[in-house]
Every structure is written in C-alpha cells, then in structure tokens.
C-alpha cells in the first residue's frame, strides 16, 4: 500500500453514467491486476474504493459509474484536480491458474479491472476470451479496447440492444481453461452456477478503511471470515460461501 497524491488528467464519459478518469501519479504501490485504490473525495468522510482498470509507470486509469454522492462529485472533477489515494489495496487476481484459454467475465462496472488482467494474460501468450454483460447498448464500453489487446469478445445486453440478448452467462464461450469474474453479486452467483471450470471472483462491499483495519467489509468463506478489502477482493471459487 502507498499513500499518494494523484493529479487528474482526463475525466470524461465513455458510456451512459460511466466515466473514464486518468491520473498522473506514482503507481509503484500497485502490484497486481484486480487491486483497488481508495480515493479521498472532497466533502466526504470515508474514502471511496475503485478497482484499477489499467496503469503504467506514472499513469492510473479508473472507470466508474455514477451511482451515488462520491462518484457524482468525482464526475465533476476537472483536469489538474488532486486526489489523496491509498494505492495497491487488496490481493488481485492469481495469474498462475489461468491455463491456456482463460475467460474473463465482467458485468457493468465489474468490467474495468479485467482490462489490466487481459493485458497481462495476453502478454503471457494466452488465448483470452472476454464476456461482457451490460443493461443496454448505451452502457456498453471497452469492447474495442479488449479486441485491440487481441481478446475474443462476447457481449450480452439485458434488452438485446447490443450483442446477445440476456445476461453475461448467456454469452459465455463453450471452451475455456479457467475464469475470472467481476460484477454485481447476482451475476457472480450466476457465473458460479453456470461455469464448468475453476475460477475466481472479485467482490464488492461497503468499506471503512480499505486496508484491513476496521473489519467493516468482512465476509464468510468456507475457510472462516475474511476481509473483502485485505484478504480479497478476489476469492477462489473453492472458498466461496454464498
């Protein structure tokens, strides 16, 4: 974990209610795909956690949906605004188990952390498939970005306005070696029931601190209680207790 000050470079909508924010900052605290940052937002007491979509040596990309006060304030932030952040929080995905044909499954704002994961897996020479689920065409984002990385992309929308009509589990390819899923809990549960291989899930929870101190985001697993922020947010299929 590192405490850093990040300067906003770019903050623009890329789909309905969905923004892409790019910051200039020290990213050395981030060590793995699937980790998150906890951002201090002016006027709010608690920091707000955001999954890392992508990063390089000095730039950090977050994609967020405006769902409440914190994200609403963030959506109005301007180039040059500075944010205090805790970076490199959480465990992130385990790339060891991916196999040759990993499948990445994302729903809505669960999609962003899969981008850096896809990048890493492609770099390792894997054949990566990505299944993305959204409510409607206006909310679809990052399909081209995943394609540009070299991933096979499958899209589903609930209203059928883009890709296959249905949920993301209706758009999964038949063959894959392992999966990584991120999205709302109802989606994760459906993925858990439908998938035929082992895999891992990234969870979301209301957090106090984001670094394991307050026990605010605890969850029950087959191996006892764990903290979503510190022991997670990624949990293996074999430890999840719904």
């Amino acid at each position, binding site marked *: 974990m590192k405490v850093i000050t990040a300067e906003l470079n770019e903050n623009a909508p890329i789909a309905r209610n969905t923004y892409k924010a790019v910051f200039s900052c020290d990213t050395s605290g981030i060590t793995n795909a699937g980790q998150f940052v906890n951002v201090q937002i002016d006027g709010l007491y608690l920091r707000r956690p955001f999954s890392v979509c992508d990063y390089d040596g000095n730039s950090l990309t977050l994609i967020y949906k405006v769902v409440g006060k914190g994200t609403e304030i963030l959506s109005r932030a301007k180039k040059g605004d500075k944010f205090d952040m805790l970076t490199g929080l959480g465990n992130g995905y385990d790339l060891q188990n991916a196999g040759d044909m990993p499948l990445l499954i994302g729903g809505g704002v669960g999609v962003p952390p899969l981008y850096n994961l896809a990048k890493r897996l492609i770099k390792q020479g894997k054949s990566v498939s990505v299944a993305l689920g959204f409510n409607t065409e206006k909310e679809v984002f990052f399909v081209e970005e995943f394609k540009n990385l070299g991933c096979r992309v499958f899209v589903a929308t609930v209203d059928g306005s883009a890709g296959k009509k249905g949920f993301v589990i209706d758009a999964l390819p038949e063959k894959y070696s392992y999966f990584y899923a991120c999205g709302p809990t109802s989606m994760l549960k459906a993925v858990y029931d439908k998938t035929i291989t082992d895999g891992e899930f990234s969870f979301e929870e209301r957090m106090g601190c984001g670094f394991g*101190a307050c*026990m605010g985001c605890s969850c029950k697993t087959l191996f006892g209680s764990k903290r979503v922020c510190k022991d997670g947010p990624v949990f293996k299929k074999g430890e999840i207790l719904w």
Partner: protein
Amino acid sequence: MVKDLSVNLCGITLDNPVIPASGTFGYGYEFAKFYDINMLGTFSFKGTTLSERFGNDTPRIAECALGMLNSVGLQNPGVYKVIAEELPELKKVFRKKVMANVSGFSIEEYVKVCELLDKVDEIGWLEVNISCPNVHGGGLSFGTSAISAAQVAGAVKKAVKKPVILKLSPNVSDITEIAKAVEDAGADGISLINTLVGMRIDLKTRKPVLNNITGGLSGPAVFPVALNMVYKASKAVKIPVVGMGGVSSAEDVLEMILAGATAVEVGAANLINPFACKEIIENLPAAMDKYGIKTLDEIRGKA
C-alpha cells in the same frame, strides 16, 4: 527543545498520550507495516470476547457528514486465539504494553476473558467495553445502567491484578452517574465516549443502509459531544479519564486534555489515514508551542 509528552495512565507511563482506539487498529501488527508503532503511547486492540464472533451481516459501514456509522458487532477470533496467535504476532513489532479491549454478553464472560488476559505480560491495561451499541443482549446493555456497569467493574476488579478501565457509552442520560458508579466499584480508570447510536436510510431502496439498521457514529461529527462528556466525567471522578470521540488532530488532543483527559484515544481517523496517529504525535509539540503549553500536566482539566 524536545517536549516531554509523557503521561501516567493508571500507574504505567506512556511516552505520549495518543492511543489508537479499539476496533480501528486490529491487533496492531498490520499498522506496523506502515510505520513503527512503538512511537504510540500504546494502542487498544480489537474488542475481544470469549468465543470467536463474525459480527453482524454487511453492509456494516455507512458514510455520514464528517463521520461514519459502523455496525461491525465485535468481530474477533475469540480470546484463546488472540492469546495464542494475535499477541505473539504483535510482540514481534511492539515492545510496549498494549491495552486489551474486552467485551462480553454476561458478567461471567467479562470476568473469564479478563482473567485470561490478565496473565499476559504484554498487556498493560484491561479496557472493559460496556458500551458496544452493535450487539444485542450484551455490551451496551451493561453500560446504560449504573447498577450493571458497577457490577461488571466490581466483578472484573476482583478477578484481576492489572488496571481496569471501563469504556463508557454516550447513549445515557447522565454520564457522571455511570462514571461515579464504576469508580465506586473499583475501576482504575474510565474511557469515553464509545460511539453514538445512529442510522442512515438509502433513498433508492427506502431501507436502512446498515443490515443491522443501527450503527455507532464516530468521526469528527461526535467530537464536541465527546469533549463535553469527558469534561463532565472528569469533574465527577478522581480516577484517570481516557478521552475519545472524533479526535483527529494534535489540537483535538489538547482540547481533550484541557477537558480533563489523562490520555486520548483516536478511532475513525486511523481508517481515513493509516498514518493519523503518527502525524498527531509528530504535530503535538508544535501545537503545544503554538498555544504556549509547556507540559500536558499543566493544562489537564484546566478548561
């Protein structure tokens, strides 16, 4: 000139009055990755019960204006695991006496847990929490009546050798009555305030944000309430008072000491900034200089 920030809390000297509060600092060793926690006065570890507890279902955190609600509900691994696993881990990174925070659902449980922790060398004080607002049938129910608060204090005191500090609730009509009752029952000190009971409602779902419906309010929002209760309680008793509730800066620490606190616990601030206590300790000498304060003893209770 280096300032002497030391204070004496129930017979044990602290290098400075700053103590991370229970529930915001785990069992300490995780914060040792961020800074050398030996710079702290001490810290109060996560509230410990006899058996392991998961606590309440999530969501158990909610945002408030200048503060937060939590309804964690005393999640902890149970006293046996704390002694066997957590404290040895802490010993690797912390050389000072730690404050043990104890909770229970019966007087017998408080006594049992305190007896077990009383035998642990690394523990300096037993902070007995009779004020957790997030559990049913325990905690707070002992702290809202002078009679049961005194019963817990008396029973624990009889069973242990280490100094016993009763952690009191602000959710009472007269804090001085409870403070005096535990002092009469033999308590060596009191700490206050625990969190204030509150709730938030999600306008989208039209339901309470917290699964437990209510939670405990902490953070800067409660500081004036806490300060007033510390002021009143410290005038009502002769035993040391540990002040807490929304303390976030060196200036807040000085206000608490002026109100009568011997030492000061810092809670929610640790969650927003993992370095909060380190920064408060580092800023304390300059804050004292700014207000012409030579020693903490000279201002204690002088407000």
